């Protein structure tokens, strides 16, 4: 580990082909989400949802997206279909029971829009490797303490998940819990809140001390010039986003 006179700096694995300019990434994402909410054609939304799902798989976050779909969108879809297609039997603004198909279509529209928006958000943010996040945000103009806060916020969610699991394990090990079914886990929630919250605050203190002492965020920020952005990837991101946005805007404002 003896250092040479001019040590060669470290650079992460370069996947330039997949890396659009950060501004383009965020802009494309914003356009895509807006277009999703402006589109009322269920076939186009369905196609967009399929395309986003495929991209999510290509980006390597398919499993996480699938979990979100199963745990959030599937129950949400069933609930909305039941309410608007079954109970109300009509879309909003229409007399109850007057248009069951319209009610079902409205429910599907809501679900598909949320599906597309969350897929695009995941593509824009979660598909960025965590060690590249400070660099990408830095290029987008988020720097210094604000950068550290934003990165810490992203690090918090997986940590909360992990700590919840740890507290559950500790409760099992200490003979305080036996029921591991879904309902058993639900019953644990009130008992988990305090320890998880306390631990999260402590963890944030440790992490800020570690980051500051080792200057990890500063060093990552400084490495942002090492990252290479791909023009081709930027074009590939921007063109479909612009095209869809233009279509959605025209459809919305020209009736």
């Amino acid at each position, binding site marked *: *580990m*003896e*250092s*040479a006179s001019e*040590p*060669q*700096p*470290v650079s*992460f694995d370069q996947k330039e082909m997949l890396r659009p300019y950060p501004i383009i990434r965020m802009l494309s994402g914003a356009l895509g989400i807006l277009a999703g909410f402006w589109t009322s054609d269920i076939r186009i939304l369905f196609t967009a949802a399929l395309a986003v799902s495929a991209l999510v798989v290509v980006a390597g976050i398919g499993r996480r997206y699938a979990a979100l779909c199963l745990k959030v969108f599937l129950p949400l879809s069933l609930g909305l279909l039941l309410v608007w297609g079954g109970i109300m039997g009509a879309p909003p603004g229409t007399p109850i029971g007057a248009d069951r198909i319209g009610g079902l279509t409205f429910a599907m529209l809501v679900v598909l829009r949320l599906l597309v928006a969350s897929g695009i958000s995941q593509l824009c943010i979660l598909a960025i*490797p*965590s*060690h590249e*996040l*400070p660099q990408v945000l830095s290029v987008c103009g988020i720097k210094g303490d604000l950068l550290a806060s934003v*990165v810490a916020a992203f*690090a918090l969610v997986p*940590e909360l998940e*992990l700590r919840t699991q*740890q*507290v559950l*394990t*500790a*409760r*099992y*090990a*200490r*003979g*305080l*819990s*036996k029921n591991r079914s879904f309902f058993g886990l639900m019953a644990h929630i009130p008992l988990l809140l*305090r*320890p998880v919250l*306390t*631990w999260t605050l*402590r*963890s944030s203190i*440790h*992490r800020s001390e*570690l*980051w500051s*002492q*080792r*200057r*990890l965020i500063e060093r*990552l920020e400084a490495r942002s010039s090492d990252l290479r952005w791909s023009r081709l990837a930027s074009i590939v991101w921007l063109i479909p986003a612009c095209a869809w946005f233009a279509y959605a805007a025209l459809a919305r404002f020209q009736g």
Partner: protein
Amino acid sequence: MNSLQDSHQLKGIVPRNVTVVRGPNFSGRTDFLRAFAAAAAGHSGNNNNGLGAYVPAEVYNSLSGLAVTVKEEIELHAQSVACLASAQHLFSELGIDHLYGRSPFTLSGGEQALLAVTSALALQPRHLAVDCALEQLDTDFRTATLNYIESARHADATILIADNRLAEYRMASSAWLAVDMSPAPERGAGSLTFPSGMATSIPKPVKITLDGLSFKYPGGADVLRNVSTDLEPGNIYLLSGKNGTGKSTLAKLLCGVLRPTKGKIVFDNRETEPWKAPGQTVAYHFQNPDLQLFAMSVDEELQLGLQATKTAAQPGILTKDSLLALFALRGLLEEHPLDLPFVLRKRVAMAATLAMHCSWVILDEPTLGQDQASIRTIAEVINLLAGNGLGVVIINHSDEFRSLLAKPKTLRLSGAGGLVQ
């Protein structure tokens, strides 16, 4: 501690060398190491950027949280390609290259300790302080890590190591030095002392039989394969094996936190399913106390232990009062466990485990962070418990601690996941 002002008062620390910092618990060693690492800021040298790194005993807190894999964690820290190559060489030498693709949070305690030290060294810090993290390493990992630290003693770095297994540091280099910190009892609860004439009230002895026990984590390789053995009550078993061979996993299977993928666990000739009622026959003390403690006060932690097995207060060593006296926790009942220093957190976790009043207790690295006097007391307690019929399994890498235990039997987990007796 006022940063480096106090540290200069410690004679014997030579810049650009490795120094072993000795001292009893509560001598201010941890504060000193933290201040030492923090004091690096602003001092730029020839080969570093004035960075400091402190590696705590709870190595979990030394992970950046910014990396998805071990490889990324090291890359994140590495000052140069040479540092990366050096870390990679260490992992290859230990035959654990496969860990590079794993999440740092899924590693075993020893592996996390190795990663924490490796990452910190890859920073090429001006000041590096390692606080008891090396105690969690097995002989091979420890030897390789000490040699790595020795080779990393580059021109502008000063390295401090605090550890209670001092004898084992002599092997790394004759150039290394040692300094002593004087005891300051008013700073904390002091070393453990064994109360004389303490009686014991031990739950009903239970014999455990493991029959072809296997386990693998979802999506992972087999951790344990076909483990079969009998564990007789009243004995002390030392569960040994290299870091990452599944010692803690076996402990979690025994206490019922995990369910075996194959095989049977038999309590007193009755096939049982401990995962359906965990923590009733076997109590498990975690290696990292932070993963075990979750109550809002020390008092509550101990009460939870008693509540778990619905034990009525009985005279003896396993009552709350006795445990408080034994682990020197009397004045800390209202404290939040996570506000205490590591040494005390470890003691609270141990006391809470014993308070469960189970027939068996598994202690994972019970001596971690404890000074020599406390280690001797812990050994005495274990000997007393085993002598009265309690079954004890200990996961520990220290030969010195082993020598203090009464007739311990060794169970060694091989790298292939099997048990070698």
